[in-house]
């Protein structure tokens, strides 16, 4: 029997294919197309302390094999989210990973305190790398010290057993350095990668197409960046579990991230093109693993790092 189970920190999951934060709405939108219990986990949108309108429109530009977005974390705020969205997801029997995002270290501390008493949550994704903020200096994951401070604030306040997964940006010179900082600060796992900062200029209006000027690039266009980041971090920190994401559109793509070192994979932009993409990818991934001779997902994690002189690898 093939074993598809995986874990991130202390949390166990029946399969390794998750939604990506900000790409599955409240869960209700997708539940028309499949049963949410089919997912390894639903990762919620990154929730902030207060209701948030998000950025002005246009917020989206399609790009070759990808898209640019500048949503700006539109959402109801943590209180309404815990009152409405979470109970509904629990009723569906979904495995839930809550994603949180703050504007200050104190925000992360308060969000963690609000989460500590919430039942039915498997893990907490701490988004310290959203590119759609007014000031790039506010992207915590761009600097080792701010990345550490945000994760420490969550660690101090969360208590109990809830695993913390720190979500990092690839828009840094040395992602391994940031990964080491957040792990030292108490992160149990890492989510790699957030979108890559980009821009599209409309050649008719001759101005940036997005109202927010810059946006986060996602989709298959960034997959090699994700594979590289996961590979580098897994090599440096082989015992830290990675939730991989970035342009996964097929089981083959998910397999690629797992070979690089991901223990689970999130599907984001592919859901926009196909609401049932996550289910298709889960089925295809299992076929990929079995056809390559693996008896379990765990055996394949980081398999691209193996030393095998017969194959002439570096």
């Amino acid at each position: 029997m093939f074993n598809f189970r995986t874990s991130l920190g202390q949390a166990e999951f029946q399969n390794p294919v998750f939604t990506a934060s900000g790409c599955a709405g409240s869960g209700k939108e997708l539940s028309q197309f499949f049963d949410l219990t089919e997912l390894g986990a639903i990762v919620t949108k990154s929730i902030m302390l207060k209701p948030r309108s998000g950025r002005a429109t246009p917020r989206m530009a399609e790009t070759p094999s990808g898209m640019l977005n500048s949503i700006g974390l539109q959402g109801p705020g943590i209180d309404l989210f815990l009152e409405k969205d979470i109970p509904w997801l629990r009723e569906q029997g979904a495995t839930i990973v809550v994603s949180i995002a703050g504007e200050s270290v104190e925000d992360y501390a308060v969000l963690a305190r609000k989460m500590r008493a919430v039942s039915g949550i498997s893990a907490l994704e701490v988004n310290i790398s959203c590119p759609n903020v007014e000031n790039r200096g506010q992207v915590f994951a761009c600097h080792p010290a701010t990345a550490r401070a945000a994760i420490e604030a969550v660690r101090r306040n969360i208590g109990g057993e809830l695993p913390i997964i720190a979500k990092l940006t690839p828009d840094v010179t040395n992602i391994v350095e940031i990964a080491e900082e957040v792990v030292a600060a108490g992160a149990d796992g890492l989510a790699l990668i957030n979108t890559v900062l980009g821009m599209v200029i409309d050649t008719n209006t001759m101005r940036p197409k997005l109202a927010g000027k810059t946006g986060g690039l996602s989709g298959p266009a960034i997959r090699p960046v994700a594979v590289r980041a996961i590979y580098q971090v897994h090599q440096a920190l082989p015992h830290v579990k990675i939730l991989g994401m970035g342009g996964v559109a097929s089981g083959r793509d998910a397999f690629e991230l797992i070979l690089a070192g991901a223990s689970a994979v999130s599907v984001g932009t592919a859901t926009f093109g196909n609401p049932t993409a996550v289910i298709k990818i889960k089925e295809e991934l299992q076929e990929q693993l079995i056809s390559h001779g693996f008896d379990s997902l765990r055996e394949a994690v980081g398999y691209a790092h193996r030393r095998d002189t017969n194959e002439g690898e570096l």
Partner: protein
Amino acid sequence: MTGINKSATQVWAEIISNKKVGAYHHIVFSVGEIASSAKPGNFVAIAVGGESSSMVLRRAFAIYRTFDRGASGGLLEIVVAPHGAGSTWLTNQNAGFKVDLIAPLGTAFGIPTEPVRALLVGGGYGSAPLFGLSEVLKNRGCRVDMVLGASTAMKIYAPLDGKRSVSSLTVTTEDGTTGITGKVTDVLPGIIAANEIDIIYSCGPMGMLEAINNISAELGIMHQCAIEEAMACGIGVCMTCVLPIKGEDGQVRMLRSCIDGPVVDGESVIWNSKRSIPEGTWGAN
């Protein structure tokens, strides 16, 4: 289950026919039971470019009309303007080709319970969903007048059988190649007064919808419009197609045009809000 996307179904829909009509393409799909659940105002989301395409997002099209002929024979029709790579790809597909299609999506035009005098206003291929609406209104005993406008004659979409469903049809073009020279809003006040219009239904570019709303607001006439915002997913998960809309509680919120629209009450929309979040919007910082 939850009310969101509650009738939406994803199918491989075969193209039954694809014909060029003026500047547009009229495409008919075999969609089975979807035809029975679609209402005027709803839209479809179609994957474009084929399996290995670099276009990762669906394209949204208003439903022109449907024919409910049971599970095997249901038909759904759209009118496509080939102005981008995705819509051009779709207009190049022939009968027999199958596309990945999701429908019906979004809100539908509200149908009055009493017979009223309705004016339907369409810009360019925005006329398409109005013909199905006209049939429904006529079956409810409503009088239906129609105004269609475009930049030029080639961009007026008004099929013969569609014209038959309305009591009067007025056409405007900006270059005067057919009908009255000018914009739809030039003729609206006269037609509204002459026919004692109770409600306006509109579909077309946002600028036109806003101009119509200025007239309807001034005259105190109800106005339902099908809005247009760039969408990535069409099913409510991407949060890109939002616009500021005032709720019944008076609070302005950034709502999704795919879930809370495309058909909305014109008076609830905070118009001309591209590139800014209106002051007082829920969660504005």
